[in-house]
């Protein structure tokens, strides 16, 4: 259970700077809360045919929580490859901890998870969202949660896949910046795309439609879209996992 120790250490490290931690939390929750107001405004202006009135707000909540969890891993992955390319990670690589645990948790920033929980509290406390769709059918709620996990995996595929090039180039690539910019597309609900384009995104960049697919699972159960999404994400995650291990074997740790 190394990852629990690593997360606990990250939390202790954050708690050393209490004012900074509190300020970052307030800023993050404020940003997502104001974006939530933006979606509430959009929701009041449009009528989505055949959709629950709540649909857009639950969509944004799913996006916000998903992207905060992804940020938790993003910061860890970015800092790992930063340390790696500067030759500072060698001491860690010789320890009996799995490579993936090190990449995903050694430099994680726990405040993103806390911000996600606080934001969920804001959604509940605001009274703007009716959580009925999440409580009606446990099977569909489980699918929704499952797709959310797959959404995080889809983001990890992108982050790990591109960052793994650092093993070969010995240089850190601006993957976090590119990822953050592309992830912004996940703010667009699937209703904005044609069905064909949606399947293209599922196949090529599944990370940008995770919230839409999660909502599809919540309202319609195990649909073809959800199944294809699960298949694409699982296959690509296994592929990237092997790709990272393969490139790690070529890493010479010279740095520079």
């Amino acid at each position, binding site marked *: 259970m190394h990852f629990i120790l690593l997360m606990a250490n990250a939390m202790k490290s954050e708690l050393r700077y209490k004012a900074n931690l509190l*300020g970052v939390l307030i800023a993050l929750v404020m940003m997502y809360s104001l974006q939530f*107001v933006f979606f509430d405004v*959009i929701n009041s202006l449009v*009528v989505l045919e055949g959709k629950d009135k709540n649909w857009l707000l639950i969509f944004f909540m799913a996006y916000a929580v998903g992207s905060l969890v992804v940020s938790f891993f993003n910061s860890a992955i970015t800092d790992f490859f930063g340390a790696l390319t500067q030759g500072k990670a060698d001491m860690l690589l010789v320890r009996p901890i799995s490579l993936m645990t090190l990449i995903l948790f050694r430099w994680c920033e726990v405040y993103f998870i806390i911000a996600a929980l606080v934001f969920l509290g804001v959604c509940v406390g605001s009274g703007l969202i009716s959580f009925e769709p999440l409580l009606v059918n446990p099977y569909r709620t489980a699918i929704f949660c499952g797709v959310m996990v797959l959404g995080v995996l889809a983001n990890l595929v992108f982050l790990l896949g591109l960052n793994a090039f650092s093993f070969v180039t010995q240089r850190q690539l601006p993957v976090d910046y590119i990822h953050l910019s592309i992830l912004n*597309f996940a703010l*667009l609900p699937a209703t904005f795309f044609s069905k064909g384009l949606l399947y293209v995104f599922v196949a090529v960049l599944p990370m940008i439609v995770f919230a839409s697919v999660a909502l599809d699972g919540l309202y319609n159960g195990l649909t073809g879209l959800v199944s294809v999404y699960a298949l694409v994400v699982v296959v690509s995650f296994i592929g990237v996992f092997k790709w990272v291990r393969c490139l790690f074997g070529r890493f010479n740790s010279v740095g520079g």
Partner: protein
Amino acid sequence: MLITDLLIATGIPFFIQFAVWTFVYEGASAEELPGYSLSEMYLYYIAVLALGRLNNAYDLIMNVSNHVHQGQLECFFAKPISYIQYSFFIFYGAALLYYVPLLMIALWVGLSSGEWVGAIGFIVFSALSLLLCFLLGFLMSLAAFWLTKSDMIISFQVVFTSVVGGTLLPLSYWPETIQPVMQYNPFRLLISGPAEFLLRPSVALAQELIVLLIIWLVLIYGACHMTFKLASARYSGAGG
């Protein structure tokens, strides 16, 4: 970096807003929508995203924080120019390149509509907003004298300019309870204020923006001086 900024940092948010508002305007009846027409909405987002790139105090905050945390301020105190002036010229020089897209927008609006009041006002308010942006960024960066990490300052800078400033939503679309905050906060003068004037120039709006600009410039300049004095007194130069 400029190309990356324009293509990714500006292009993607614009595409998202373009898609969202096209969807909204196609799905809603015109009388439900307060404020702008769809084409005005596109222009609003082009303008605010360009202003967001211009009025970006990220580097300023990072530089001041690094100087404080690494104990490098003495070098600047020895220069024949005050630290605030030095930071100002560095900030202005770095921002100038991002002024070109604003000039192009103003020129395009002026030529296409034949209406130059909004375009000229946009250029003038944008230039003044850069001064306010510097003072706001400098004031925020002074928190580095009291904080060991600067993540919090950067996070607030991003939230204030991107959301409170009006990049997310034009003023008239915010719920009435939030509108006063959105209307009178200084970040509006950096982002949505000049864009509003470009779209709907009027004497009343110009007066409102000028009065707000003067009040905030005086207040923040005073706050910068007082805080810098206090901060310099507690600065040990040891870094850390």
